[in-house]
């Protein structure tokens, strides 16, 4: 009898100790503890009403959920030259907020002074690029994959990931920020890309004059409205087949076309990636949002102004074997818009630019 109560007593003490331990461990905030499931603060994308009304949900991969800490880390990394080989260039060097996250040069210059072969792409609304083909030639299959490439590209940031990760690891701030974002201060290139992708997904632009017009919040000029009619008219602009419409506020089809720039294709674009010669010279349709900030235009930045772009489709189309059938008037150089139609079309295109996007304080350099 005595022995039994002793055992029960021991058991009680044991249980008490275990419960104490459990209580301690569950209230321990240290994400370093490998036994702990550290959870950063979830922050799903805020979808603007016009996108909510017209578009499917944005793509937020389950393996890289949006979090307050992850986005903040990505933003800091995006603007920090620490990722480049000589510490002089950040993502933001060629993807400036004031240029809707592209730059204003024809071809961007890397850290060694070499010119790239393509115009830097603007970054916005990429969470709706649901076919997940990034770059002008679609070679990256996710934003995370895309973010890995410029760091090691010899004519861009010309670094190695080993070196970039070592720089981050030895920095006073980053190990703690990675710890907060991902529950580990052991920095990897994959986590770096994840943080960058989280920040990039937050770059949402949906507040242009035309957006507000569609939402019934403002009016447009007669010229802008006429320009939209030209855009939607198969016999005149016929822009809508690749560049959206009032029900597709992405203003791109997110697929690839040869838009009649050259007789001889020197940059094969998608054809280089797929190996299919019938896709030589195919490049991704860029969105028409924020054109006011993204000059020069085309995959190689060959057109300095919107007038040049419109003139190309109006009378400058050039035949090549892989030209898209939608460049239907190629035999006479284009659709031959009148000068007033060109001016109206340009006015409409500029109504798709969103000043609140480039000035958004959440998108500026935090460093």
């Amino acid at each position, binding site marked *: 009898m005595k022995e039994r109560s002793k055992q029960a007593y021991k058991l009680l003490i044991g249980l008490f100790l275990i419960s104490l331990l459990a209580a301690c461990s569950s209230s321990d905030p240290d994400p370093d503890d490998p036994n702990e499931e550290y959870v950063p603060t979830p922050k799903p994308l805020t979808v603007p009403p016009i996108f909510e009304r*017209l*578009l*499917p949900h944005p793509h937020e991969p389950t393996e890289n959920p949006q979090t307050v800490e992850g986005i903040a880390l990505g933003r800091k990394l995006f603007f920090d030259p620490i990722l480049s080989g000589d510490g002089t260039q950040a993502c933001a060097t060629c993807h400036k907020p004031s240029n809707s996250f592209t730059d204003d040069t024809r071809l961007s210059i890397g850290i060694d002074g070499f010119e790239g072969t393509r115009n830097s792409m603007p970054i916005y609304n990429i969470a*709706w690029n*649901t076919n997940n083909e990034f770059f002008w030639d679609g070679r990256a299959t996710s934003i995370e994959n895309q973010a890995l490439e410029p760091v090691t590209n010899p004519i861009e940031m010309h670094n190695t990931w080993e070196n970039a990760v070592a720089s981050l690891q030895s920095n006073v701030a980053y190990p703690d920020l990675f710890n907060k974002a991902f529950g580990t201060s052991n920095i990897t290139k994959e986590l770096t890309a994840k943080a960058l992708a989280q920040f990039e997904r937050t770059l949402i632009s949906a507040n242009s004059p035309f957006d507000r017009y569609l939402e019934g919040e403002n009016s447009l000029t007669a010229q802008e409205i006429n320009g939209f*009619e030209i855009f*939607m*008219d*198969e*016999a005149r602009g016929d822009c*809508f*087949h*690749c560049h*959206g*419409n*009032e*029900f*597709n506020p*992405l203003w*791109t*089809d997110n697929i690839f076309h040869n838009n009649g720039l050259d007789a001889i294709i020197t940059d094969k674009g998608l054809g280089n990636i797929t190996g299919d010669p*019938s896709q030589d010279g195919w490049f991704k349709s860029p969105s028409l949002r924020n054109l006011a900030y993204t000059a020069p235009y085309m995959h190689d930045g060959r057109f300095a102004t919107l007038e040049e772009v419109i003139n190309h489709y109006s009378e400058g189309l050039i*035949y090549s*074997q*892989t*030209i*898209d*059938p*939608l*460049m*239907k*008037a*190629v*035999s006479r150089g284009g659709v031959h818009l009148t000068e007033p139609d060109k001016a109206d079309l340009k006015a409409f295109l500029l109504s798709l630019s969103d000043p609140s996007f480039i000035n958004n304080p959440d998108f500026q350099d935090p460093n």
Partner: protein
Amino acid sequence: MKKIAFLLVLVFVAVGCSNDDSDPQVLGCMDPNSLNFDSTANTDDGSCTYEKSVTIAFTQNWDGTPVTQADFNSSVYQNAAGNYLSISKLRYLISRISLHKADGTSVDFSEYQLVDLTDPTTLTLSPALNVATGDYTGISFIYGFNEQDNSSGAYLDLNAANWNWPSMLGGGYHFMQMEGSFDDTAGAPHPYAYHNGTARVSDGVFEQNFISFDFDKNFTISEDTTVEIKMNISEWYKNPLNWDLNERSVDLMMNYLAQKDMNRNGKSVFSIGEITQ
């Protein structure tokens, strides 16, 4: 003795009664896993039905020769008007697929499908609704959207796919985009964009242009089933009208007669292919 005989009669009557009352033959389905399990049945009459899945497979051919993405920009076809053409894009919309049963009821699938030959995942549709095993007599569907369904901007995935048909042409969505290149009379390559949707009669006046297909087809579903819907692309260019791309190749969306001629030719484009289990 009389009493005994009377009792015996009573017993017989009672037994007879009880046989009739408590153990009559009740026909029905006796499988608890079936859709129509009858717990009162004591004799299985073979009427059990089960839920099976149906997959719709969309295939394309040119007069019987299969056409896939691999043929794009390379295979050359000759249409009824004698034009040599290649294909670089083929996307089309099918909606309101129904299977009709022998008893007059039907299974109506709510999904629509934008078939895009460059995206293999769109070549099959797996409707959420399962169907009951049994005898079926037909399959119907709509090419495009009918008037009720063809509502501008209503389908978020189709908006993102840039599938909209311009408001000035009646709005809603494209029914088909078939594009490519053909050799014109001089033998030079020329683009074509055979796009179909609502027909614009005049400013603000539009005409429906979808096509309803209703095929008689007797088949029995006993297992998971795949139903093939076939498009014979060459039929877009013939029956009843031989379509000459030299005359009509691009800017066809706002061309009322072209839109209605596509509709006329379209009526022989689709058929039901194999039904496999």
